[in-house]
């Protein structure tokens, strides 16, 4: 179902070349990521407890991941007791089929959708279109890319690659009563007018979940626009699609995670609208959906859980900080990754979700400068995980076919420390060539690269090499 993205992966190098030659794109990416980086830094100045909060957040997610079976069952029990319906989906196709079936049962002609990366991951927009159900994206950025017929290029700002001029053109072509002055305020107002009756007339509202609260069965959504509540309240049916890793034990744990998530994502302390949804409309309620469905989606997560390296990635709370701080992302933008999830987290997740064969270029779109891990609010060792994938594609010719299709990568490498060191060294040696071209030199882009960019050189030595050097200096044997 995620066909559009999967098909794109093999053209990664062409996408990179195109992105590097696009001055408008570079400008658009900078406008948002530079602001995001600055705001996050300012938010942390006011939060000296961040380091400790990050350790705690990491521990909370580790605890959930280590007890995922328990929390899934507890969540299901409590959600059912609140009157919600629970559905389980093994993969993207199953998840989409469930949502389509629910929409059809509700006689839905039009559905509103509040941005959810899981929805993108499972290809829900495409599935709804195939089923002939009108989809109205309500997040402003998703609305923009829906009009443009594109896919998100960032997990927090899906339309970050669009300049205001481009947005203006899209709105003028599509809105019934478009803006008259070329100002961002007027454009936002135009979208507000355009989407008003769409919110009120939808038959089904679909949202994602930022957190699932095991002890109450509640679903937490966060937005700054208020579009989630406008999506989930008027329609008769509310459907939530959520990855099985979204669990937290309780609301108190969710609050601890929210402090990290929002600061890391936008630099605010809390989103404007943070809502806990528990079950369907109650007797006497003034508004709200009569039916509340939660689709719990695995789609590769239980396989990641079985892999000691990739298990760490299940902590990810989708804040986007790693891509805002990634020099490669900032050069090439999200679309060049050709996958639902771009940037460092995407380069780790995509091979896990779609197969390393389809995404083998992605882990190389990295300079190993370590910024992503530094800013990650749940301490995911992204560079290490990326190196893992590099080793994996490097050794592809050496290992049996069976090894390549599973996710036994970490065990395989861990049991072969020499292979690991060799693999890392080879990967970084390839990266060294980067200064003279490297993975990017095999592409005809030297000119477009230097036209708009100032690329820092990669660290140049593997962690293991550096460690050995340091130990030598300290007079100890490696």
């Amino acid at each position, binding site marked *: 179902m995620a066909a559009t993205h999967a098909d794109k992966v093999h053209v990664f190098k062409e996408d990179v070349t195109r992105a590097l030659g696009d001055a408008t794109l570079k400008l658009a990416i900078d406008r948002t990521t530079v602001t995001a980086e600055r705001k996050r830094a300012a938010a942390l100045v006011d939060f*000296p407890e961040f380091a400790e909060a990050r350790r705690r957040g990491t521990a909370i997610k580790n605890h959930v991941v280590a007890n995922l079976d328990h929390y899934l069952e507890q969540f299901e029990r409590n959600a059912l007791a609140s009157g919600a319906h629970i559905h389980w989906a093994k993969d993207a196709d199953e998840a989409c089929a469930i949502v389509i079936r629910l929409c059809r049962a509700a006689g839905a002609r039009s559905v509103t959708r509040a941005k959810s990366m899981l929805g993108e991951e499972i290809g829900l927009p495409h599935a709804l279109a195939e089923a002939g159900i009108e989809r109205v994206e309500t997040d402003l950025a998703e609305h923009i890319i829906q009009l443009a017929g594109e896919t998100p290029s960032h997990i927090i700002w899906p339309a970050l690659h669009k300049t205001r001029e481009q947005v203006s053109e899209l709105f003028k072509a599509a809105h019934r009563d478009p803006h008259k002055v070329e100002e961002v305020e007027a454009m936002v107002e135009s979208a507000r007018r355009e989407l008003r009756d769409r919110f009120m007339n939808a038959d089904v509202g679909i949202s994602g979940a930022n957190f699932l609260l095991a002890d109450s069965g509640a679903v937490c959504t966060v937005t700054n626009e208020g579009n989630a509540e406008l999506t989930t309240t008027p329609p008769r049916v509310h459907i939530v699609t959520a990855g099985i890793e979204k669990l937290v034990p309780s609301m108190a744990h969710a*609050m*601890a995670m929210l402090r990290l998530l929002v600061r890391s994502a936008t630099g605010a302390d809390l989103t404007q609208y943070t809502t806990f949804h528990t079950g369907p409309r109650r007797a006497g309620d003034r508004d709200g959906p009569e039916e509340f469905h939660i689709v719990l989606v695995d789609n590769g997560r239980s396989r990641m*859980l079985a892999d000691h390296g990739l298990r760490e990635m299940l902590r990810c709370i989708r804040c986007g900080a790693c891509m805002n701080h990634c020099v490669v992302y900032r050069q090439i933008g999200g679309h060049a990754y050709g996958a639902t999830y771009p940037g460092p987290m995407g380069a780790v997740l995509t091979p896990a979700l779609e197969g390393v064969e389809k995404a083998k270029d992605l882990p190389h779109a990295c300079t190993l400068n370590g910024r992503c891990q530094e800013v990650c609010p749940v301490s995911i060792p992204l560079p290490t995980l990326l190196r893992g994938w590099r080793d994996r594609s490097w050794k592809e010719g050496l290992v049996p076919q069976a090894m390549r299709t599973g996710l036994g990568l970490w065990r395989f490498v861990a049991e072969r420390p020499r292979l690991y060191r060799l693999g890392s060294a080879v990967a970084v040696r390839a990266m060294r060539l980067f200064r003279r071209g490297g993975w990017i030199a095999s592409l005809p882009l030297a000119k477009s690269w230097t036209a708009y960019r100032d690329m820092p050189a990669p660290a140049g030595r593997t962690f293991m090499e550096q460690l050995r050097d340091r130990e030598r200096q300290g007079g100890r044997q490696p």
Partner: protein
Amino acid sequence: MSTRETILDSVRAALGRRRPDPAAIAAEAAALLADPAAIRPALPVPDPVEAFALRVVSPKVGATLERIAALGALPAAVARYLDAHGLPHALALQPDPELRALDWAGYALRDTARPDEAAALGQALWGIAETGTLVFHSGADTAVLNHFLPLHHIAVLQAPRILPYLEDYAALSDPAPRNANLVTGASGTTDIEGSYVRGAHGPRFLHVVLVG
């Protein structure tokens, strides 16, 4: 085997165990909440009411605030706000008995907000000083859409309902409503070139009237 069983089985297999120990898990989860002061920003002033008042008008929240001594002064305070914005004395007024008991002479009132409502007034159940957040619970007296449809969202909050930190709200044992809406400012977006614009889909203005 059902999909549910397939997923739970692969999770258990990945974790390499048969049966979780709920008591041990609960103890570990509780331990993760120990010493909350270490993982949250301290209030700028010790008094939660003053901290809330500071916070709600700070750029982080960006609301306007009027403090009144008693709830009886609310209709006049709301009139001042509407006048200042050149708005008629018309309101979607939450049918909260306490609010409805006030003297709204001269106002055109309705219970629920229309899609193009100019102003709605509701009583927040709780305030949270740490973030300047207003908490609304959906119910017979409270339509969720009243906080999201109007251009001007006016909220009244009584000072004794202000809690210091987010965890203090989480610790309340109130039965969970269908929707707990935590409102921290007006609707905003940075989706076009990262520039901040208010009134994306929800309210463009948040005005808080603090009683006491």
